[in-house]
């Protein structure tokens, strides 16, 4: 046997590669994501090269400019018709540029910008050793209560890494609802989750709770994303592809080229059903729907409050966007299977969130359970399976995210010696002591409750209308009942603030800098504008309600 023949057992002649086609990337259409990720990388470089004293200003400047520029890019794309007539799939099939994607990206960017303002607030905590401090720990590596921590505080260290971390998270969130194949979907999920786990661990006060929240969020989040990934593997096995369009064609049987292997797997419904159930499970975890909500109250309570606001708003927007695209683009052929399941999940989420919230005594936990109930209301719009369903969910997400960030920003203002006074008993009589803050918080609570003339009402009306027209009338009844239950505990907080005597040792209300004032003011403005004159935004959402495939 000649040497060549032996070698040919484990080698093959390398074909001369003439030419590799360069992928065709539409940088203009991907500009929002690229700007944000680029700014995050610049933020990392700032951490490495800029002197410690100037980092805060440099990071804040870069973040705000990047988010504003990315939002301008989204508006330019939408004005260029990419949301409607010119909707297309970019980046070699990886990213969809269409109405829902642009609408949600715009929402995430604005919510992220407002959240960055609350991240940057340095007037609430008392001045430590002559340095103004924000809500984040001086040095994350220092053991809580140790000399190292005191030394770091004394030296005026600040965790300015939170800005690039937030930008990375926002970058992932921008990709998540626009991902057009399951690989991009999974990578985006991880890119926005990992920075959030870290951000949760960085609170300045109550650090043990903060670290505990981060561990819980991390372990459960990693567990959920492992399920998502296995689901993706099964769907890949079923369809032989991870591209949304191809999988959708295999699911509804309209695929034209069937090779023998695909013919073997596409008859196997177990792969499809188990795979899609596992992916949807991962998404329901991210939106905090019952029965995958267990992490929500603990993480919302333990995380630094600005991070909680950011997470509650932006994660929900991104995850619902991805859920909509998955159910409406990839799995419409399976809707007779997923609709009853989502119907059940929506019912227990609405009722579970609203009922358990009644027993809460901590304002952050209360808002966490309220966010669970809201996830249920949004799911009601998701199962409508109509174009109105999509646009009502888009509108609801836009309205809800600003209320949430505003409400958590108000929570950061009410403080006592131990930091934020989050126990509800300390909020008693707040309306007597500082009527303005209490009134603003009351507006947010009324919006959560869905009282007319607030954005909450317009949003709830839109999703319930879509659900009823989509044939889910009974679900709307459950939704209205749980809204009534939820209204009880929102009103209870308002009564507590305005109609009970303030305690002598009650908390003080800190006067924030213009940053937090902007966040809260914008929240109130959006709440009232979307409540009183929602038509323009409803039209915008309904124009953006068509997915590209």
């Amino acid at each position, binding site marked *: 046997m000649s040497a060549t023949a032996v070698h040919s057992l484990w080698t093959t002649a390398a074909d001369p590669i003439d030419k590799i086609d360069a992928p065709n990337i539409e940088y203009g259409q991907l500009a929002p994501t690229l700007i944000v990720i680029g700014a995050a990388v610049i933020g990392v470089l700032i951490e490495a090269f800029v002197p410690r004293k100037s980092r805060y200003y440099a990071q804040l400047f870069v973040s705000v400019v990047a988010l504003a520029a990315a939002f301008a890019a989204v508006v330019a794309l939408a004005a260029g018709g990419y949301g409607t007539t010119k909707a297309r799939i970019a980046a070699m099939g990886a990213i969809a540029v269409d109405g829902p994607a642009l609408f949600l990206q715009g929402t995430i960017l604005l919510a992220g910008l407002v959240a960055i303002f609350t991240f940057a607030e340095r007037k609430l905590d008392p001045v430590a050793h002559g340095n103004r401090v924000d809500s984040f720990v001086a040095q994350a590596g220092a053991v809580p209560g140790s000399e190292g921590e005191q030394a770091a505080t004394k030296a005026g260290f600040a965790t300015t890494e939170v800005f690039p971390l937030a930008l990375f998270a926002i970058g992932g969130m921008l990709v998540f609802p626009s991902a057009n194949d399951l690989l991009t979907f999974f990578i985006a999920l991880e890119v926005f989750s990992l920075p959030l786990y*870290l951000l949760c661990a960085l609170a300045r006060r109550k650090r043990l*709770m903060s670290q*505990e929240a981060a561990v819980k969020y991390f*372990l459960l989040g*990693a567990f959920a994303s492992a399920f998502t990934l296995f689901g993706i*593997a099964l769907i*890949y096995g079923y369809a032989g592809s991870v591209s949304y369009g191809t999988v959708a064609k295999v699911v509804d049987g309209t695929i034209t080229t069937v090779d023998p292997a695909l013919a073997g797997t596409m008859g196997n419904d177990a792969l499809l059903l188990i795979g899609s159930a596992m992916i949807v499970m991962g998404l329901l975890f991210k939106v905090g729907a019952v029965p995958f909500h267990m992490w929500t109250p603990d993480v919302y309570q*333990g995380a630094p409050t600005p991070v909680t606001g950011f997470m509650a708003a932006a994660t929900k927007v991104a995850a619902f966007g991805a859920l909509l695209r998955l159910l409406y683009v990839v799995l419409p052929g399976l809707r007779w299977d997923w609709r009853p399941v989502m119907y059940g999940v929506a019912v227990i989420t609405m009722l579970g969130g609203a009922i358990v919230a009644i027993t809460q005594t901590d304002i952050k936990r209360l808002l966490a359970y309220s966010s669970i109930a809201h996830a249920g209301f949004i799911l009601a719009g998701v199962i409508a399976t109509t174009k109105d369903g999509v646009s009502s969910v888009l509108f609801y997400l836009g309205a809800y995210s600003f209320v949430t960030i505003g409400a958590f920003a108000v929570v950061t203002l009410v403080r006592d010696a131990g930091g934020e006074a989050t126990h509800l008993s300390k909020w008693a009589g707040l309306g007597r002591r500082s009527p303005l803050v209490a009134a603003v918080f009351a507006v947010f609570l009324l919006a959560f409750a869905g009282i007319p003339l607030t954005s909450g009402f317009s949003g709830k009306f839109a999703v319930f209308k879509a659900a009823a027209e989509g044939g889910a009338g009974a679900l709307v009844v459950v939704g209205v009942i749980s809204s009534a239950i939820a209204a009880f505990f929102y009103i209870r907080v308002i009564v507590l603030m305005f109609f009970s005597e303030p305690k002598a040792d009650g908390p003080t209300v800190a006067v924030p800098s213009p940053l937090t004032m902007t966040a809260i003011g914008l929240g109130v403005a959006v709440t009232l504008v979307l409540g009183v004159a929602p038509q323009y935004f409803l039209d915008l959402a309904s124009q953006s309600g068509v997915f590209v495939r």
Partner: protein
Amino acid sequence: MNPVNYLYLAALLFAIGATGVLIRRNVIVVFMCVELMLNACNLAFVAFARLHGNLDGQIIAFFTMVVAAAEVVVGLAIIVSLFRSRHSASVDDASLMKL
């Protein structure tokens, strides 16, 4: 050998990992079980890639490895900081927040 056998193995590894996450009490072990689940996913991807005769699954396996590495970086940072402040790595001890 029939690639379907590898799928059964992947499902088995995934189930072992998921069970470990649910019943083990040490944070590090729980985290290792999550990594086992990710590797089970990798095996499933590669087996399906062989079954379908396209390379997508193998490429995804590489992405999964990178994601798993990034998750280790973030996860160990969080777990180590928790351990340093509590001198315990038990998930049962981390119970400051309860209803």
